[in-house]
């Protein structure tokens, strides 16, 4: 028998943390509006459609996630509530500040979304509960954004601990550490399986049929059965719940396989010209995203549709795939293809509400093998696009744009309740009485 099998002789136990901002969009709105500290707030999706973020005060008024604004508006405003259009310039800047603060306090960070990040704390000495509290305090001091911190031996468990920290904010002070097996078992047994990271509504129903109702049930389920009946992903989730880390911290997100730009128009459009403007705008934006990740695409899919809910309006939805002559990231070529596609699918007599431009068949520039006889994107094209991106980076998005893209479109998004971009535009800074 070997001598080194004793306790503590194994590899260091892995430790992960999930840091998550509370009602992030609403919290951002509050940073520069101290008068709203206790006012119920909701932030609305693009076009002021439905609720995408709400404070606990709004929750207490019975406002649910995803509720259409027009349905709740009257009652919410009567109760003293305040709504904002999505102000992504502000949220993006505040997110960067939050992540910068956390980055300075942990050994490794994976920014998972605009308002949450995984940290790896493996090997960190000292009291991790205190570290969690330090992270919360520092983020709050530097940005005014409240957060919750979950700590556990795998990413899935860290996420679950975070759920508990949020759920029992008062009792926990916003930090929950479930490395201790006893605490973990208690939390797993008390958590519905639908709250586990990666288990969606459909999976919850299917798992229910197998009598897997809580996180503890999933952790205890047979791994092989899960893999056979569901997927290897769910098998990993179950292992993670048992405290066996299967997911590592991701550094950079891998380049996307598809790029989509799709938006509702601010009002219904009937004629072709404004729809052309919208499609060209979305194509230009999608091409920018394409170049930003260093990819080229071979196909462009353009689609348009009418509103789907108004029973009195005739409905219409159609899309078409357009081939490019060669893999390209040139705004001009992609826009041209998208507009040609639009000409094919447009029919007069409908009230169109949305257009979408989807770039498909992506590969990294230089990754594909050229057909010796096939045409390829000319070098001049790359140079023109480099200038376009450089100009727009320096003087703001849309400074240089295709002629068909209008500077201030009549069909633009409805954003009637937008706050100022307090931190990113010198003309819209916060003003303080002196």
């Amino acid at each position, binding site marked *: 028998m070997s001598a080194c099998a004793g306790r503590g002789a194994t590899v260091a136990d892995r430790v992960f943390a999930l840091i998550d901002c509370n009602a992030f969009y609403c919290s951002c709105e509050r940073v520069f509006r101290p008068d709203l500290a206790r006012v119920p707030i909701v932030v609305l999706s693009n076009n002021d459609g439905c609720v995408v973020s709400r404070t606990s005060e709004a929750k207490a008024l019975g406002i649910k996630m995803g509720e259409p604004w027009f349905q709740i508006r009257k009652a919410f405003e009567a109760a003293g509530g305040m709504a904002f259009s999505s102000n992504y310039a502000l949220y993006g800047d505040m997110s960067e500040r939050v992540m910068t603060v956390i980055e300075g306090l942990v050994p490794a960070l994976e920014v998972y979304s605009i308002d949450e990040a995984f940290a790896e704390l493996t090997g960190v000495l000292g009291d991790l509960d205190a570290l969690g509290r330090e992270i919360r305090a520092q983020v709050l001091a530097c940005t005014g954004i409240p957060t919750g911190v979950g700590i556990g031996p795998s990413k899935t468990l860290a996420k679950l601990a975070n759920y508990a920290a949020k759920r029992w904010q008062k009792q926990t002070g916003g930090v929950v550490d479930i490395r201790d097996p006893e605490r973990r078992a208690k939390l797993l047994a008390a958590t519905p399986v639908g709250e586990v990271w990666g288990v969606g509504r459909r999976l919850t129903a299917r798992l229910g049929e197998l009598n897997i109702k809580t996180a503890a049930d999933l952790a205890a389920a047979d791994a092989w059965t899960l893999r056979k009946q569901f997927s290897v992903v769910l098998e990993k989730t179950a292992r993670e719940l048992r405290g066996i880390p299967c997911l590592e911290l991701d550094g950079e997100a891998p380049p996307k396989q598809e790029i989509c730009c799709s938006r509702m128009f601010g009002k219904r459009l009937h004629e072709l010209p404004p729809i052309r403007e919208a499609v060209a705008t979305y194509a230009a934006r999608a091409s920018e995203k394409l170049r930003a990740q260093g990819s080229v695409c071979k196909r462009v899919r353009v689609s348009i549709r009418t509103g789907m809910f108004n029973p009195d309006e005739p409905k219409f939805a159609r899309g078409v795939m357009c081939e490019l002559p060669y893999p390209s990231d040139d705004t001009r070529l992609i826009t041209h293809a998208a507009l040609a596609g639009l000409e094919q699918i447009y029919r007069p007599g409908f009230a169109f509400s949305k257009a979408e431009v989807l770039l498909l068949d992506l590969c990294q520039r230089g990754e594909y093998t050229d057909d010796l006889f096939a045409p390829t994107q000319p070098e001049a094209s790359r140079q023109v696009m480099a200038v376009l991106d450089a100009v727009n980076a320096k003087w703001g998005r849309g400074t240089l744009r295709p002629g068909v893209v209008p500077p201030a479109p009549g069909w633009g998004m409805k954003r009637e309740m937008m706050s100022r971009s307090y*931190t990113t535009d010198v003309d819209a800074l916060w*003003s303080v009485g*002196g």
Partner: protein
Amino acid sequence: MASVSILGPVATGGAEIPYFLPSVPAGFPSPAQDHIEQRISLDELFGLHRPQIYLARVGGDSLQGLGILDGDLVLIDKAAKARRGDVVIACVNGEPLLKIMGGDQHQVILLSANPKYAPRYVLEAEDFQVWGVYVGLCRQGRHCG
């Protein structure tokens, strides 16, 4: 009597001037060439890259005695601990004000630096918080930007 010779207008705009401008005598390498490191960055100087630093625009002349004028941009450190005597953004009942924080541990008094304005006593029932501490000033001159 001192004499003045007029050389003509100073050229404006155009070329960026590096921190060290080497003169380059023919045939002899400039000793300054190796020392050009970077241009001065106001962002760096003011610490604008730090997550706790915010810019705000001053509206009003209550701090003109300190040289903080109406329309100035002020740099605010949100994380700094405020001490008596600091200029702070104080939020009284939700309204942000740039004032000098005075008083003692029993009583907060917000002071101005302009005889036009009386001290503002913060009452116990009022909602008061310090949003951040004033740490710097930017003022744009004519023709700037």
